[in-house]
């Protein structure tokens, strides 16, 4: 059966040729990966988060290893929204679906960056990175306080008619509540999870290994946390979900789809193997063929929980 497999997906109004995207901050501005894979093979990619003005990141050390994970504290380093529009967008092959990611330290900044991106035909959608410290709330992440998150999504929703994704922070007590906030404020989809806040220490120097003290944990170690949160969010809202967290293979992609994600983003694995996302698309197709599944969307939310 199923001589042709339908890999297409829809992420809140963004049509995707397949559900495999790459995650913001792990795929640069896309062209860095051109030597390693055909960018047009991907479902799409989420560009490095943009601020209004170019920003420098944190002092080094910025990264460290942890068991099956890495810890990073890069902060806001990016070329700024205007240079992204002028230089980075035009450099991408025409068939690449580009989602722009935005972050700022104040809500007005988020809205202005979205406005500038919304006039660009190449921007298929906008993803709010809600894991940025909110200066006005004393530095907690926007995505950690439902009232602040609500205000943020509302402001960006007013600023753009493009499909709007909100990338949720996992550093919360109740992810379902945050998902409902996004749905209530008119977001088109949610992406989860962003990195899990962590800390690593050098016992010899008795210092934190990162100059920033705290960092974001990513990689295979966080995958079960991500699956749990995607599953909880999927039961709380009707919004399509883009699953993120420690994906390194097509099997991992299937796990996220089963838990309710309509699409996924590959993150840290891009560092280990810059060609991995293209291979995952091929392997996903092979999985569907092997299991006699004609459409990838038939897997979405199809987790089977045996009755006890």
């Amino acid at each position, binding site marked *: 059966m199923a001589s042709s497999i339908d890999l297409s997906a829809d992420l809140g109004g963004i049509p995707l040729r397949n559900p495999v995207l790459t995650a913001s901050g792990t795929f640069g501005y896309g062209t860095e990966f051109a*030597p*390693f894979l055909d960018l047009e093979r991907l479902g799409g990619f989420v560009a490095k988060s943009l601020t209004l003005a170019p920003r420098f990141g944190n*002092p*080094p050390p910025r990264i460290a*290893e942890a068991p099956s994970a890495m810890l990073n504290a*890069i902060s806001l380093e990016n070329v700024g929204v205007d240079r992204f529009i002028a230089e980075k967008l035009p450099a991408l092959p025409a068939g690449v679906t580009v989602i722009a990611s935005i972050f700022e330290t104040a809500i007005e900044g988020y809205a202005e960056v979205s406005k500038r991106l919304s006039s660009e035909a190449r921007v298929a959608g906008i993803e709010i990175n809600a894991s940025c410290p909110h200066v006005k709330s004393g530095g907690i992440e926007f995505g950690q306080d439902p009232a602040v998150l609500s205000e943020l999504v509302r402001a960006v929703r007013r600023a753009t008619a493009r499909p709007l994704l909100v990338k949720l922070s996992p550093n919360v007590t109740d992810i379902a509540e945050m998902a409902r906030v996004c749905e209530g404020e008119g977001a088109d989809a949610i992406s989860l999870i962003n990195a899990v806040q962590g800390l690593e220490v050098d016992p010899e120097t008795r210092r934190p290994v990162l100059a920033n003290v705290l960092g974001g944990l990513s990689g*295979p170690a966080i995958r079960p946390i991500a699956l749990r949160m995607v599953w909880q969010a999927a039961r709380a809202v009707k919004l399509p979900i883009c699953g993120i967290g420690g994906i390194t293979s097509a099997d991992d992609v299937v796990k996220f789809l089963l838990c309710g994600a309509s699409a996924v983003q590959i993150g840290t694995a*891009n560092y280990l*193997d810059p060609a991995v996302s293209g291979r995952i698309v091929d392997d996903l197709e092979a999985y569907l063929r092997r299991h006699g599944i004609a459409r990838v969307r038939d897997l979405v939310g199809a987790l089977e929980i045996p009755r006890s």
Partner: protein
Amino acid sequence: MSAPPLPIRTDATVVVNRAEGGANRRLVLRVEDWPGFQPGQFAMLSAGARTAVPRTDPLLPRPMAVYRTRSQNGATEIEILFKVTGRGTGLLAEAQPGQRIGFVGPLGRRFELPDSNQRALLVAGGTGIASIYELAQRAQAAGRVTVLLGARSAADLMGVDDFEALGVGLEIATEDGSKGSAGLVTELLESALASGDPARVYACGPTAMMRRCAEIAAGHGAPCVVSLENRMACGFGVCLGCAAPLREAGYALVCRDGPVFDASVLDWERVP
């Protein structure tokens, strides 16, 4: 010189993996479709041989200088000299001939060759030695080359026989005096520059060593470039992990903007 070759991502086959004195190892990898490389470029190697179920711990690949290469039966053999310092390099040391290692390279920006009237002074300490062999070989074709190697002890030196075989000027310093002169390699640089001949200094090694080389070179009015090491997750400008602080403002990326830098652009107080 031409633009750097585009990097490839491949599974390289281990041909040789042998002890090289102290904790040092020599790894020879066979790679198909190698695009060539320029002196100073590096590669990212998976932390150990590939396993049936991909290993996730340790997770990140390790940046390693490309020491030298040679064509062999239609493919390219790439030599890597490295030191076992932790779990990732420990797993690399255990990789057996025939096993595969995840490989991305060549990466980074090259060393510029010296001008024809300049003597090239190559200063390397510890594993930094692995970064300068190709430069020594190519600079030798252009003019006079002196290589100054330093390490804590004779057992920590790598590649000495190779440099001797090249026929470049070679001086060695060890901190314990077990080979060459007793002391720091930077003291050899001080004497080498004393003649006042036009020279260009290339340094690769521990940060303190490179910083001292930069100071000595500046004191003699000689240009100095350094090749930095840093932690990095990707090696091609995406993870932004390998920030090197600049004197002006902000950071450069060791992988993309370096690893070779003009010593004068770096803010040495903050280089990790």
